[in-house]
Each structure stands twice: as C-alpha cells, then as structure tokens.
C-alpha cells in the first residue's frame, strides 16, 4: 500500500482533518480535464474526466500464405501504450469539502479547464469556496435536469444498475437486466421534499408532481421528536423501533380486520394516532419508526397515483432519503406493493447518489460528447454498492471509509445489442447468478482465490524486461483479493455476480497495475498450435455425416471451453499432464445427457433450417 499523505493543516478542526490515500481516492488527478460537482445537503459528489495511459496488448498477424514454416510464430504480440478516457466520481461528506478541494488543487497539474459545473442545493453555499480553492469559475446547472441526465446515463451504460429490494430474501437485491429502451419512466427523487418526474426521452422530461413530505420531514420532525440530530442515527433508531405502540392500527379501531374492505388488522389506520395523549411516554425508536412508515407510505402512495395517472410501470427512487438505506428501501417497496397490489415495482439504482454529478459533468462535456460512446463500470476503481452504508457496515464508518468511488471507462465503440438475438431484453448472457446460489458462489470465489498465485506468477512472467513487474503484481494480488473478499461479504456489490464479472474484475485489476494480458504468451503458444492443427480438424469433421458432424462440433466446443474458462479441474489436469490435449479433453467429456443439455432440441431446429 502506498504511503498515505496526511493533508489538512493544523488550523482545521478534527472533523475536517482527514487522511487521504492519494493512490486510491482522487486518482489520475494529474490528467484530469474537466470537473463537475454536486453538493447536496450532506454529501458532495465530485466528478472529473481524465485520460488514463496504460499498456495494451496489440496483435499483428504475419502473412503465411504459401509458406510451411514450422518454427515461426503466426502472429506477433506487442505491448503498447494507449490512452483512454475515464470518468471518476467521488462521494464524501460535506465536512471534508475544504480538505478535498485543497487536495485536488495540490494535485492538479496541467488542466486547461476554467470552469466547474456545479449543481445541488449546496452549490450556491459553497460557490465562493470552490472559486477560491480551485480557481475555477463555478457554472451552476439546474438540479433536476442534471439528475435526469445522470439517470439516463447510468441506465444506458451500467448493466444491473436498477434493482428491486426484497428484505430478508437471499439475495436482498434483485438486479434488473438492462433494457435497451429505457423510456418512459418515472423518477421519484426524495430529497428534503419529493419531486416526481416523468422522463420520456433523453431530452424530454416533466416534473409532474411532488410532495412536501420527504426526507426533510423525516429529518426535521424526527429531530424534534427524538432529539436526535443526525439523519443516519434517526434511521438507525427507526430500524430498532416498533411502530405499533405509536400508530393506531385497523385492529385498534375494529378489534380485528376490516374484512369487507380487505383491510387487515395490522394496517396503519392513523399514523401517530396513539400518541394523541399527554400522559404517555413514547420511545425514540418507536416514534422514529412510525415517522419512517408514515413518510414512506405517503411517498409510495403518491408515486402510485402518479404512475397510474400517467400509465407508467417503471418507477425509480432516488435522493438522500433512499441513499441505499435498506430500511427506507424496504418501507418504500412495501408501500408500492401495497398500493399497486404488486403491479408496479419500486426500483432503486446502484449509483443513485451520483446522478446529479454525472449529469452536471455531462453538461460540461458536450464537446467530448460522452453520450456518443459506451461506458463500462471499472470494477477495480469503484467501491461498489453500499460500501459506506451505515446499515450494512456500521464499523466501516471511519473517516477514510466515508469515500465512495465510481469509475467508468470509455469503450472504443458504442455497444449495441447483438442483432441476432431473438429478444435482446430477455437475453441473459450468464448461465448462473452467483448472488442467488451461495454454494456456487463459494465455489467460484475460492476458485478465483486459489488461482490468484498462478495469475500473479504469469503476470510477472509476461513482463520479463520490466523491473517493477513483481511489485505491481503484488499490488494486483492485494487489490483483487480484497475485491473477492468484498464480494464474499456483499455478493451484490457490483450488481449480479457472475463468473464473467469475476473475470472482468480480475482484468480491471490487472489493467490497473499495467498487466494488459498475463496470458498473452501462453495464448500465443496455444494459438500457434491450434492454428496449425486447424486444417486437420476441419478435414476430419468434414468427413463425418451430417448428424455426427454436428455432434463432433458441439463436443469440440465443450472441450475447447474447458480450456478457455481455466476452470480449476482443467488447470489441475494441465499442471500435472502437459501433454493433455484436445483429443484428451474430448475424451474426458461426460456422456450425454449433460448438466444442461439442449442438444436434441438444437439438432431438431437445425434440421428444419437445413431442410
């Protein structure tokens, strides 16, 4: 771990002094180009755009036509430096804003930027500070349009951005597959008040309603009732309370259910209805819980009424009231289910806290037009869901744990759905969601953990000429192991957990430490062999009759995949028997029926096409 630099002078109060590990929090500042900031009531979100230089493996093939060279490689791999674009988003408490701005200023090297886009309720309050510290002109952007722009951006670019929250379920988060068509939707933003926004397209949205009973009501009224100052503490009180001692339930009035209306006895008939007395004391916890129910139910009800009126079924919730708190997500979900009888699902967003900052940034980045590209979440540089949630990790809420990060890498091209897919919206590329299957999750996490030594070894070996390869490889080991540990505790940290995302995370961590492809040499050797073998395989396959040929192809695919995924069993075989080859792999295949076996169906369909 890099040495931490302590910043923040002696003049600051304890609260404002903070240790910032520069390698980990405001990364790539030296190449930062453009800034945006979203200052909310308690959290600040800083966004910047930077360029990242890293090594990439480039492949160049040679022309071998007519030559039968046994020894010469068929292609060449060269490691080159490439510059790509990255978006950084950092979230921290407003208390640290001054320290963070100082840090940013100190590490800013050659930016040509003159302005900083700012949004959020606090943008006005901190305008002078921003201008003084960063020497950038503050350019204020409308909060709501930033929010919508940011929301569209994450919904389009981040798979598994939206999720349904199911308390006590395993897993509690049910991620939604990204729908290519995200519009129209309803966004319920619960800040101090509530705004209800109907979004019809990238540029068209309308605030169709709102309510004054929101997060500010919970906080303000909660503070009055319980003498508890902090929002998070209020939520913690609420999660321990019993609302039934404060609320008047249907059964308190009826003695049971109100059967003819289908109202069960446990429904709240009147929030705080039992506290209408001067001679009884109520516990803070119970009052906070009752208040939380009252506000969540009210917002849920209004959301449903608006969704119904505008005929919208996708309803996303965001704002500081939600901010990943399980207790508020649960009460909102409950309310939506109750009022729509399950017709509308309450959807939450993994990066809800960043929407404003992302939107403000996008507004200032029109010349680079980030919307022209596809962007992918960089798992190495992103903290993951609820990394600082007080409900999940009360212990982690130390000073340095208050930073949450999101990094997005620009992809070379705009991604589109595979046009050959029958229905792209229902296609799930992964066979297994490891968040749902604890045993499979444990198997794969252990598998990747045990393979880590080998990967580190390969990484070092892949760069024999570079002296710092070993040191970087060790850093990679630490980082990836930490990611795997996080995923063991919070399988939902980065959306659905799949073997693919575990591989992606490993790749992102390797890239982070400049190992574009530790396997490049092995691949080259194997590819060389494979290409030389190719003609023979094709010829032998062609000799078979149609049905046998299809079966041979499928067996070949399965055998080949065993190598490609590098599963533990295969790597064991390879380690012990270097001569293990394709034919051996095919022989190792189990007899049909396979674990997932749709071969016969496939053949039937193929026959129709052939005929």
């Amino acid at each position, binding site marked *: 771990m890099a040495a931490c630099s302590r910043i923040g002078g002696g003049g600051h109060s304890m609260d404002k002094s903070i240790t910032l590990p520069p390698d980990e929090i405001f990364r790539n500042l030296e190449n930062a180009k453009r800034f945006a900031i979203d200052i909310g*009531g308690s959290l600040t979100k800083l966004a910047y755009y930077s360029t990242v230089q890293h090594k990439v493996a480039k492949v160049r093939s040679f022309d071998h036509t007519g030559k039968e060279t046994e020894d010469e490689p068929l292609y060449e791999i060269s490691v080159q430096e490439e510059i790509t674009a990255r978006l950084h988003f950092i979230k921290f408490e407003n208390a640290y804003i001054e320290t963070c701005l100082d840090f940013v200023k100190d590490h800013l090297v050659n930016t040509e930027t003159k302005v900083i886009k700012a949004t959020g309720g606090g943008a006005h309050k901190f305008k002078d500070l921003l201008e003084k510290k960063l020497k950038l002109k503050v350019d204020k952007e409308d909060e709501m349009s930033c929010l919508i722009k940011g929301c569209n951006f994450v919904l389009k670019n981040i798979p598994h951005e939206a999720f349904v929250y199911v308390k006590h379920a395993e897993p509690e988060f049910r991620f939604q597959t990204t729908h290519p068509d995200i519009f129209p939707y309803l966004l319920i933003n619960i800040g101090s008040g509530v705004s209800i926004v109907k979004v019809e397209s990238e540029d068209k949205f309308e605030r169709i309603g709102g309510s004054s009973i929101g997060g500010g009501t919970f906080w303000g009224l909660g503070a009055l009732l319980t003498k508890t100052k902090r929002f998070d503490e209020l939520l913690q009180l609420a999660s321990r309370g019993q609302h039934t001692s404060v609320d008047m339930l249907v059964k308190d009035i009826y003695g049971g259910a109100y059967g003819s209306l289908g109202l069960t006895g446990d429904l709240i008939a009147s929030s*705080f*209805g039992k*506290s209408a007395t*001067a001679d009884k004391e109520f516990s803070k916890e119970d009052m906070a819980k009752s208040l939380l129910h009252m506000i969540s139910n009210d917002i849920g009800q209004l959301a449903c009424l608006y969704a119904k009126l505008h005929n919208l079924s996708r309803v996303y919730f965001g704002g500081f009231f939600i901010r990943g708190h399980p207790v508020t997500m649960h009460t909102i979900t409950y309310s939506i289910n109750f009022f729509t009888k399950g017709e509308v699902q309450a959807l939450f967003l993994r990066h809800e806290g960043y929407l404003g900052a992302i939107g403000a940034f996008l507004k200032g980045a029109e010349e680079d037009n980030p919307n022209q590209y596809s962007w992918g979440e960089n798992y190495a540089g992103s903290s993951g869901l609820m990394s600082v949630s007080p409900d999940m990790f009360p212990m982690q809420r130390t000073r340095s744990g208050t930073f949450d990060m999101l990094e997005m890498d620009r992809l070379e091209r705009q991604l589109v759905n595979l046009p050959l897919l029958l229905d792209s919206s229902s296609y799930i590329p992964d066979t297994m969601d490891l968040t749902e299957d604890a045993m499979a999750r444990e198997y794969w996490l252990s598998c990747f953990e045990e393979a880590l030594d080998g990967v580190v070894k390969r990484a070092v070996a892949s760069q024999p000429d570079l002296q710092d390869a070993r040191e970087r490889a060790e850093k990679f080991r630490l980082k990836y192991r930490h990611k795997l540990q996080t995923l063991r505790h919070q399988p939902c940290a980065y959306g659905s957990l799949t073997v693919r995302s575990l591989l992606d995370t490993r790749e992102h961590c390797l890239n982070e430490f400049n190992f574009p492809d530790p396997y490049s040499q092995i691949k080259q050797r194997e590819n060389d062999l494979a290409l030389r073998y190719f003609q023979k395989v094709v010829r032998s396959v062609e000799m078979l009759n149609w049905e046998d040929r299809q079966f041979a192809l499928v067996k070949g695919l399965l055998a080949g995949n065993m190598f490609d995924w590098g599963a533990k069993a295969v790597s064991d075989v390879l380690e012990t028997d270097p001569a293990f080859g394709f034919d051996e792999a095919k022989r190792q295949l189990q007899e049909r029926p396979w674990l997932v076996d749709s071969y016969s169906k496939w053949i039937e369909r193929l026959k129709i096409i052939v005929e």
Partner: protein
Amino acid sequence: MNGYHSPDEGDTETGKEETAGGKQQRPSKESASRTKAADGAENAVAAAAGGGTPRDRLASNSRTRQRIDSLKKNRPPFPWFGMDIGGTLVKLVYFEPKDITAEEEQEEVENLKSIRKYLTSNVAYGSTGIRDVHLELKDLTLCGRKGNLHFIRFPTQDMPAFIQMGRDKHFSSLHTTLCATGGGAYKFEPDFREMADLQLLKLDELDCLIKGVLYIDSVKFNGHSECYYFENPTDPVQCQKKPYNLENPYPLLLVNIGSGVSILAVYSKDNYKRVTGTSLGGGTFLGLCCLLTGCSTFEEALEMATRGESTTVDKLVRDIYGGDYERFGLPGWAVASSFGNMMCKEKRESICKEDLARATLVTITNNIGSITRMCALNENIDRVVFVGNFLRINTLSVKLLAYAMDYWSKGQLKALFLEHEGYFGSVGALLELLNPT
C-alpha cells in the same frame, strides 16, 4: 349477520333475569369466560355454516322477534339512536320525539323518560361528552314522528364508561336495537353484550356515511343549505362561504377525515367504491401535536395552530430557490419540505409550539389535498366533498383544502364541505334502524 352474532337463547334468558332482578353486580369472571367460550364455539359454527340460512337467523334471534312484536305502525320502539364508534371519537345521534301524546307519555317507561330528559336537558355529559347544540336539527319528521335530532360526541377511550352507564340505566330492558357503525361497533360488541346485555346491530361505516350525507343534505340544516363551498378560494380578501346545492351530486369524491382518511368515489346512492385512504389524518395531527407541544386536546392543538406560523418550520420553495421555481411552475410560497427548516439545530431550538402546531396542521391538510386531487384525476371526478371531525372548528384546514383544490387543479376541482362534518356515519346508522335495508 344476525345469525353470526345472536347469543344462545338459554344464555340470554339467564342474563335477562339477572338484570331484570336488579342484581347490579358485574358478571362474575367465571360467567364471563363461560360466555366467551360459548361465543367461540358459536363463531366456529357460524363460519362453517357460512353465516346460516336466513330462516335460521330469524329463528335464532329472539330479540329481533321481540322488537318486531312491539312495533307499532311499522316503527321501532324508542329510543332512536345511531352510533358511530371511530378510532378517536364516538358520534351519537339521538332523535327526541316532540310529538309525544299524553297517553304515550304515560306509557313511556321510566328508563326511557330519564334517558330523554338526561340527553336533552344537558349539553355536556360527564367530563368529556358534548352535545353540539349548534348542529341540532329541529322539527324533523322521521318515520312519521316529529322531533329534534341531537348530535353528541365523546372520546372513544370513554367507551367503557358509556357501556357501564348503559348497564346502570338498564338500557337492555328497553328492547331497542342499538345500531352502531365504525370500527368500534366491532371492537366493543363483546363489551356491550357482556357488560350491558346489549346487542349491537353492526353496520358498515362507509354505507352509513354515504346514507347519512345524502339524508342530511336532503332535509337541509334547519332551512339552510347543509353543503357549502368557498367562492374565490385563492383570494384571502374575496374568499366567501357560499351555499351549494348538492341535489344532483354524482359522481362525487367523498373524503372522510377522521383519525385516518378514507376516499370514496360515489356514483349513485348505492354504487360506490373506496378508492384509497391514508393514515395521515386527524389522528396524526393531534398525535404529533401532543408529542411536539405537550397539548392534549384537539381544541388546544387547533388554538395553537391558529396563532402559529408554519413558514418558520417548513422549508418553502423560495427558501431554496430565492423565489419561484419557474421551470416547474412552483410558486415561491409553496412548501418544498414540510418541517424542512427543523433539520437545522439552531432553528429547532428557537421554534415556538404554536408554529409547530400550525406546521403540523398545514402538512396534514396539504397532504390530504394532494392525495385527493390525484384520486379525483384518476377517477375523473371534479367534485369533492370533505367530511369528518378533523374539519370540526377547523376553518384553517377547510379554507386550505378549498384553496389547494382550486389552485393546483387550476380551478378544475371544486371542494365542498358539509355543516355536520363528522356525524354522517351515526346518522346513517340511525337511518338503518328506521328503514332497514
């Protein structure tokens, strides 16, 4: 219903003998538990039999038979009560016959006379019962009898004392049917039966509510209109209360604000549905006010609210945007966050109780207005009648609702109010006694 709730005949006889014999002690614990056990068995039977056939029901209900026997000119015997037992308040309507003949007066049993005298000669009963004299309907003709309709209320928490009084005054000897609605009709039914030997006829509260509204509006309020609205609701100077003719009321959104709130869409006198409801109602206002200010009554809370100022407590649009949020058509005076200023410690410490009471009132009222408006849009109804005891002596909320409906709907929605605010359920219950459906 009758089959379900009728007591075992043998048991009733014993019970009656006891009371008739003037033994005023409470039923012993043993006998109470015996009754309970019997009830339990009965319920199981009733449930299994699906409520029983109509014939069973008639045969098993000795009291109904007695009542029918004693009917003269197809009228139930006096006293005529309708009762609505809500979460916070019990609303009682009592018809005082004014056309009693000398002969009738002679026949009138002492119990009945004493009840009549007690109710009509007092305006307060015990420490918490109150007769709303200003609401009394005079010279009303009901079922061929002329008389006055009295409106009485007391807190639901005093129900045990009320039932005890029914026992002490041998109410059960009058062989009247006590028609009751509201949740308390269900909750307190066993108490009425066990403590006072009184059988309740339980009625659905929403049926009663609509019946009551339509009836009171039709008989008018002592020659005046029962229904009213505000002309120029958004102009504090020009705003004026005006009578409204509710003769052709359908479709109608009926919003009943009691402890909680029910919103009904009424399409004809017997076609209605409960659209939705909210738990943020009168009970929430009073409950929060008690916690925030230490007050203990609705009157106190309202009085404080009248003197208070909500803008110190609430965060307004102009507090955030410096003025109107024009882009979204939000005026600067609109509340952006109820109690939003109370997030700030300094402001919390300097706030006065009156302001907190006012903000609570405004928050609850505006929220009801907002949900109502959405329901009206979803149901495509443009007339809303607000009733319920939250609106009693609550001009602030009445005017605020009138304002909110008009302003946010750009004049499309009309807010209507009724003078007898919270009594319609009990009126409906009384009507059920006189004209059983």
